[in-house]
């Protein structure tokens, strides 16, 4: 019984945090340091799962952080830098040691002469079975982006997950566009070229779009996401209307 009640409370809390009026006030309180104790900890837990909270907090933290300019200088002791330098040196030598450890291509097997053919076979198999594993983005299982307005206000969060091949797009504030217009999501290649049209986005709330395997593969080359307002029922391959929101796509494993 109490579990049901707790679940209900949690759901209500999450809904409360999705209300921009509420979460903007909480975000500014967090950023300035006025949110403390358990409330601060709870909010940090929520930020881990709700990207828009993180984005709004980041924006406010950035505003207040310029207060550091007003402070008078205070020189730390030399020991601080010495400790930092020692830490950097020791961690870089550890990572070098790790790189040097177990160089599998120079093990006895390969030194004995029949290594090259076997290595070629292994590389061919890797390429054939999983060509993506040779790129750093290959391990990505989630792409995400926070999209901002012209005035750098975070307005939407998008997540694209490999597990269900779904793109979810959460608009935090309603976007007002004329009735004959619709919002279209575009993925722009990092190195330039034609953008990929991902679909139409609802003017408020959440939109879910199923993506194909080919689209998932293309995401590793995508840099920027944009939302433009386009004429309804007109088939276009490139954005023609005004760009309303944009953000950088980042990957995580």
């Amino acid at each position, binding site marked *: 019984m109490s579990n049901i009640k707790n679940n209900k409370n949690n759901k209500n809390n999450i809904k409360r945090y999705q209300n921009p009026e509420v979460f903007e006030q909480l975000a500014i309180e967090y950023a300035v340091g006025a949110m403390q104790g358990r409330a601060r900890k709870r909010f940090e837990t929520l930020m881990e799962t709700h990207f828009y909270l993180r984005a709004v907090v980041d924006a406010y933290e950035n505003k207040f952080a310029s207060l550091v*300019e007003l402070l008078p200088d205070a020189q730390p*002791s030399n020991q601080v*830098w010495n400790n930092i330098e020692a830490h950097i040196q020791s961690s870089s030598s550890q990572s070098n040691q790790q790189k040097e450890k177990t160089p599998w291509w120079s093990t006895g097997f390969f030194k004995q002469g029949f290594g090259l053919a076997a290595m070629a076979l292994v590389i061919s198999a890797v390429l054939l079975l999983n060509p993506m594993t040779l790129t750093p983005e290959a391990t990505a299982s989630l792409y995400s982006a926070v999209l901002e307005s012209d005035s750098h206000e975070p307005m939407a969060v998008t997540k694209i997950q490999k597990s269900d091949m779904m793109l979810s797009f959460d608009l935090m504030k309603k976007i007002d566009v004329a009735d004959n217009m619709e919002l279209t999501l575009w993925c722009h290649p990092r190195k330039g070229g034609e953008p990929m049209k991902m679909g139409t986005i609802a003017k408020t709330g959440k939109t879910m779009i199923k993506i194909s395997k080919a689209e998932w593969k293309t995401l590793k080359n995508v840099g920027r996401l944009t939302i433009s307002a386009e004429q309804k029922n007109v088939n276009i391959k490139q954005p023609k209307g005004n760009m309303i929101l944009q953000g950088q796509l980042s990957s995580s494993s």
Partner: protein
Amino acid sequence: MEDIYAEMLQKTAAGDQLAFKQLYEATSPKLMSLCLRLMRTEALAEDVLQEGFIKVWEKADSFSPGKGKALTWMSTVIRNKGLDKLRSLKTKAAETEIQYEGLEFSSADLEPDSLENLSQDIKGLMDCLDKLKPDQRECILLSYYYGHTHQELANKMDRPLGTIKAWIRRGLEDIRPCLT
């Protein structure tokens, strides 16, 4: 105004230790000053500064120049380290070095010479803060620079806890439209 530290931070992200040292030398006096106010003792302030700069070294690649200045990004990283440390200590250090009190440095009436060296960001923020009632402004700045809890502010300003909470809540509500 150009962000003079952004290039050093970007070189740091690429593993350039010399650039990181230059960045430390240029920014550590301001950031130490922030740590002293937050932690109140030199020993704790230096601990936080050290841990904060190590985090800056490790996370420099997550700095994005389009989203803000290098110094503000670094001060957020280091201040959050300080707040975590305060939370882990549970209570503030009993030993408080008295010179790290007050808000004279953030006075609204700064000398023209001092104003010249400030960025547009801080000038904009100061304009917003100046629109608040003096008590609200003071509470917000004391929260930011000193990490005071509401109860500490109530004791320091000799006001009921509810009044302090209301000042901060309303002050932040009032300042929001000015910040966006």
